[in-house]
């Protein structure tokens, strides 16, 4: 019996270690490759220890591609859309959860229905819309279509349902107006939900690839994923060192975010919207 237990424990650790190694190794190799010379990356047998070529690779990247502009664009676009999505979703979610008004069920059903539709379906009409407005290749095209998401409203409504109505009543008796109630009482209590939605939204926008690929032409407007994808397009001389430097730089904001808001990442996951 004891032997069996030992075997179980061993199996457990083997599984955990294999799973952990497989998960982490691509990150390790990405960091390592960013510090190596091209010849070292493809050496046989592979170089597994970080080298000292990071800044040379960075310089190559800076000379060939607008890396800092792309990083800025990604932060800028994701930042703005995150703030507006959280704020407007909270407002609408609050109304849907705690008010009764004509057309409420109908409007909310429309939101739910559109939430089911993948973004890709709207790619063509959105593109035509941007052309008509003359907004292709601008920040307007990158930002405006993503200022709000139906999912945000849905999630906020679900969270607001559990907000104690008595608190709102009490505030009203004290003479607090609706907007005041929202900003002074509801929003502060809903901070965790806002953080979770904010992280989901930021990650989603940060990784958005198909839309920038569609509306952006000029290098100055590239977001980070678009720039990285363009670096390895057929016809480019692919230099993996600089590409991996770009990849590392793009991962830093996400890691900072993760360290700051670890537990909200997990609750964001349960809202189940990061895939796709």
């Amino acid at each position, binding site marked *: 019996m004891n032997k069996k237990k030992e075997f179980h424990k061993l199996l457990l650790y083997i599984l955990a270690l294999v799973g952990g190694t497989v998960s982490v190794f691509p990150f390790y190799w990405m960091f390592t490759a960013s510090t190596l010379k091209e010849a070292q990356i493809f050496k046989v047998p592979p170089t597994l220890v970080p080298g000292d070529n990071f800044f040379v690779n960075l310089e190559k990247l800076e000379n060939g591609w607008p890396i800092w502009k792309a990083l800025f664009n990604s932060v800028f676009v994701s930042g703005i859309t995150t703030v507006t999505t959280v704020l407007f979703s909270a407002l609408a979610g609050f109304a849907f959860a705690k008010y009764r008004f004509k057309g409420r069920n109908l409007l909310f059903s429309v939101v739910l229905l559109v939430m089911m539709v993948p973004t890709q379906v709207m790619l063509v009409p959105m593109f035509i819309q941007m052309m008509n407005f003359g907004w292709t290749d601008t920040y307007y095209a990158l930002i405006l279509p993503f200022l709000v998401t139906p999912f945000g409203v849905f999630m906020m409504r679900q969270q607001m349902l559990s907000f104690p109505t008595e608190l709102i009543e009490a505030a009203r008796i004290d003479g607090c107006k609706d907007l005041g109630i929202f900003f002074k009482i509801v929003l502060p209590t809903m901070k965790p939900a806002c953080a979770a939605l904010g992280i989901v939204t930021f990650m989603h926008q940060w990784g958005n*690839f198909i839309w920038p690929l569609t509306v952006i032409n000029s290098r100055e407007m590239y977001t980070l994923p678009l720039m990285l994808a363009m670096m390895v397009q057929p016809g480019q001389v692919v230099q993996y060192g600089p*590409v991996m430097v770009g990849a590392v730089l793009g991962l830093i904001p996400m890691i900072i975010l993760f360290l700051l808001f670890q537990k909200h990442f997990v609750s964001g996951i349960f809202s*189940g919207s990061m895939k796709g």
Partner: protein
Amino acid sequence: MPFVQKTNYGQEPSLQIRSKKDIKDFFVNLIPYIFISPFFILFVIFMLYPLIYSLVLSFSEWRAGTVTFVGLENYKKFFVDPLFWKSLGITGLILVVQVPLMLILATILATVLNSNSLKFKGVFRLAFFLPVLIDLVTYSLVFSLIFNENYGMINQFLGLFKIEPIKWISDEFWAKLLIIIALTWRWTGYNAVIILSGLQNIPKDLYESASIDGAGKITQFFKITMPMLRPVLLFCCILSTIGTLQLFAEPFVLTDGGPRHETTTIILYLYDKAFSSFDFGLASAGAYVLTTIIGILSYLQIRLSKGGEV
């Protein structure tokens, strides 16, 4: 299970407000409309309008800004396009192999994390979760480096065992497998975290009474764990199915849909139709077919598992 409550999108169990008193106090005519208006104005302009417009487009021909009604022509056109069926088949194949594989691995990892005899749980959990942080393009690039046909690490490693270099990009079988491997790497930890919370929600006394009745670990797993996990697994399954049907960045970066369109997914096909051939009508029609497929699959998955209160 608080978890299930948070994740039940699609159906809302509680649209009816609880008591009339609640409502009376908050019945103020204009205020709710003001609250929802910032969202709805943007929603109508940038989502609802494109969505309806694309329905119109799917029955039309778009040429340099002028739209002519062509009836079902677009739908006919791609239903006879062999490449459409091929891309549908390829997406289906990736789906059928990858989703079960990933969910099995995720269940294993979640079980490992849930075990009492594992130390350093936080570290392992963090490690499994790490792939979620990286965006789709970036991890695809890292994979294209690791799986490089000539000097990639994997082929070098296999070389140690005298295995010929595998044509990860240029062979149709291996190219599909590469995409499946990449997807599995990216999403297994994500699903494991969800499944783990499902495991933690199973009441411990169920296992205790089962042990007293003499049920072994394996019987317990299939008689208690699996049935209790079903809603969570279903949730993961639906999410992954919807996600895989929209597969785009990975094949775009890793294989560019090749070799010979063998990794061209539906979205890649539609994207090509729209922005290489500029056949907007056809692409819109295809997009609607895809949405319908996604809708039907989600519905079926919910129906098929009885009591799937997801």
